[in-house]
């Protein structure tokens, strides 16, 4: 029992279960089957959380190496803008082949932006938060230039599928996120890559001396983060069937960092938890849905987020634990842990 309580994912998971339970009572349909598809609030949550899961997944890897990527929102805007611009130029927007090609090209461009970030961090040696700030500021301008300040609408069936389609009764967007998570878990936990990432996050110098290509790995994680952000941008723009360079991915970098922190990955780098990040992303999405479901204005979600951030940060801060629970010292340490 105590081992479950001591698990760092216990509290996020508990909050998620409570929120989902609230949804069971407040929503008309929590989960049903309609027209052969799964349907209901739970499916909405899973579908809606796909972009955040993707962005947070890339962010986890970047944070594991001791970095941070603020530019993901801008990259989302750029990839959506590129894809919609190219699709709107197509003769037949419903042709599957060209649309797939365009999707691949948009993701490729996003990876290149990631390469730029990675090169600034690893080769020029700029602090990650500043290096990615450049693209965060300039990237949205680039997206606005691509769309010429307009909102480009597309009427492409195949493109819309990646956000609102269903495969085997499950939303395609969620399947994409699951596939991405599976791929990363496989790469980091079944090969030495995860260990290398953690070692670079622990100490880049020591890793380099141990013969690990720290620079190469750093550049790589930013490229992966860029690619996933691009994919998330495509899902976002396919969902609204248009490219909105201003609100696409706005503030998602903060949500993604929050998801990573909720998942128990420390911002200083080193050990990371992909399961925790996915849990954190779904928790944030569920929080947003639940707040609306219980009748609080959507904007008040921010207040709840603030409370969650403060609570989580304080509970993860060793200094806070010592100050608050230090007084319980005479008792066994185990009791103090449980009391939290």
């Amino acid at each position, binding site marked *: 029992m105590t081992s479950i309580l001591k698990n760092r994912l216990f509290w996020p998971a508990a909050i998620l279960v409570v929120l989902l339970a609230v949804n069971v009572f407040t929503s008309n349909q929590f989960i049903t089957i309609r027209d052969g598809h799964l349907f209901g609030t739970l499916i909405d949550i899973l579908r809606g959380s796909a972009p955040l899961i993707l962005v947070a997944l890339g962010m986890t890897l970047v944070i594991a190496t001791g970095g941070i990527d603020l530019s993901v929102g801008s990259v989302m805007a750029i990839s959506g803008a590129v894809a919609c611009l190219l699709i709107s130029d197509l003769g037949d927007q419903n042709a599957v082949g060209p649309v797939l090609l365009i999707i691949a090209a948009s993701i490729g461009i996003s990876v290149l932006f990631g390469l730029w970030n990675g090169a600034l961090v690893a080769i020029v040696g700029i602090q990650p938060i500043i290096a990615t700030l450049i693209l965060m500021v*300039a990237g*949205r301008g680039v997206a606005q230039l691509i769309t010429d300040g307009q909102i480009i609408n597309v009427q492409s069936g195949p493109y819309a599928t990646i956000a609102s389609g269903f495969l085997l009764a499950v939303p395609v967007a969620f399947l994409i996120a699951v596939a991405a998570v599976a791929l990363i878990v496989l790469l980091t936990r079944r090969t030495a890559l995860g260990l290398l990432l953690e070692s670079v996050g622990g100490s880049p110098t020591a890793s380099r001396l141990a013969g690990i290509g720290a620079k190469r790995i750093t550049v790589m994680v930013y490229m992966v983060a860029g690619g996933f952000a691009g994919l998330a941008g495509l899902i976002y723009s396919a969902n609204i069937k248009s490219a909105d360079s201003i609100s696409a991915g706005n503030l998602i970098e903060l949500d993604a960092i929050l998801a990573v922190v909720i998942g128990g990955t420390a911002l200083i780098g080193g050990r990371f938890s992909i399961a925790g990040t996915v849990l954190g992303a779904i928790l944030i999405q569920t929080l947003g849905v639940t707040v609306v479901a219980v009748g609080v204005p959507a904007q008040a979600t921010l207040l709840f987020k603030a409370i969650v*951030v403060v609570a989580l940060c304080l509970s993860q801060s060793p200094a806070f634990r010592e100050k608050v629970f230090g007084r319980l010292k005479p008792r066994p340490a185990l009791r103090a842990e449980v009391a939290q």
Partner: protein
Amino acid sequence: MTTTDTPPAAGATSAASLNPRRRTFKPNTRHIPVLATLVLLALMYGGGIANYEKFGQPSVFVNLFRDNAVLLVVAVGMTFVIITGGIDLSVGAVISLTTTLTATLLQGGWPPLVVLVLVLLLGSLIGAGQGAVIHFFKVEPFIATLAGLFLARGLALFINQSSIPIRDETWKAISQYRIPLADGVVTKPIALIAIAAVLIAAAVLAWTRFGRNVYAIGGNADSALLMGLPVGRTRIAVYTLSGFCAALGGVLFSINSTSGWALQGSGLELDAIAACVIGGVLLTGGSGYVFGALLGVLVTGLIQTIINFQGDLNPAWTRIIVGVLLFGFIVMQRLVTRRAK
């Protein structure tokens, strides 16, 4: 914009460092970023005058202070935070909370002076809270102020989600008041308030014990502590100051637009950080000047003015050019600090 890459001052130092005895003009390494920004600003201004007919009019330059008063005040507070090696993401949200609260309270018939004091206190309190969390609980500034961002904007949206007009006489009077500077050149009170904030902050940072402590903490917090400097008090004071500046910025915003809106000032924290970096405030802490932040704000303001004068340019170019300048200055800072070590 290629001029940013090769400021004349940087060339002079590299020659001097090769031969330390040569007596050439050798600016202090700490001054190089600020000097580069100053050169850039002069070049941009000169280029503007050369290309556009009415650019040389004094009102164009004077209006820079009027149009960027809010950013200027916020950047001043941000400078202190960044010099201690921290960052404050909450300033834009504090602005939105301040404008919303100001408009709501004034609508409710509260006396203007009470409202003013109240919102400034609230801003300082939010800043102090963040500082306390950062110092006592060792939470990263990035995360702690992110929580502050969510909290302040959430509160603002909770109070009111739509734009609230301000009909208070005092506020309107300040908003419509014009100060004649010269023939045909007028400015608004908010510009003077912003300039006053810059001057006071510059004096505090340069000549007071508090200012020296700020630099010491940014240089190395551990040695500052070992030297017996009040690290905790200074760090909390810095975030309090930033919160106060953000609230003051919000008041200026509400005066300028005679309204309050919970989405006002979103993204302003980035503009402020960018202005500081362009102005040569080192993001790793320990180095920078309030005067540099002023120059950074003027550079970004001037970019906007030039784009307005050009007329046919997409406003999105502002962001891109600011991004390019950020890149140039960050790389230059990197080279300068590497040489200093």
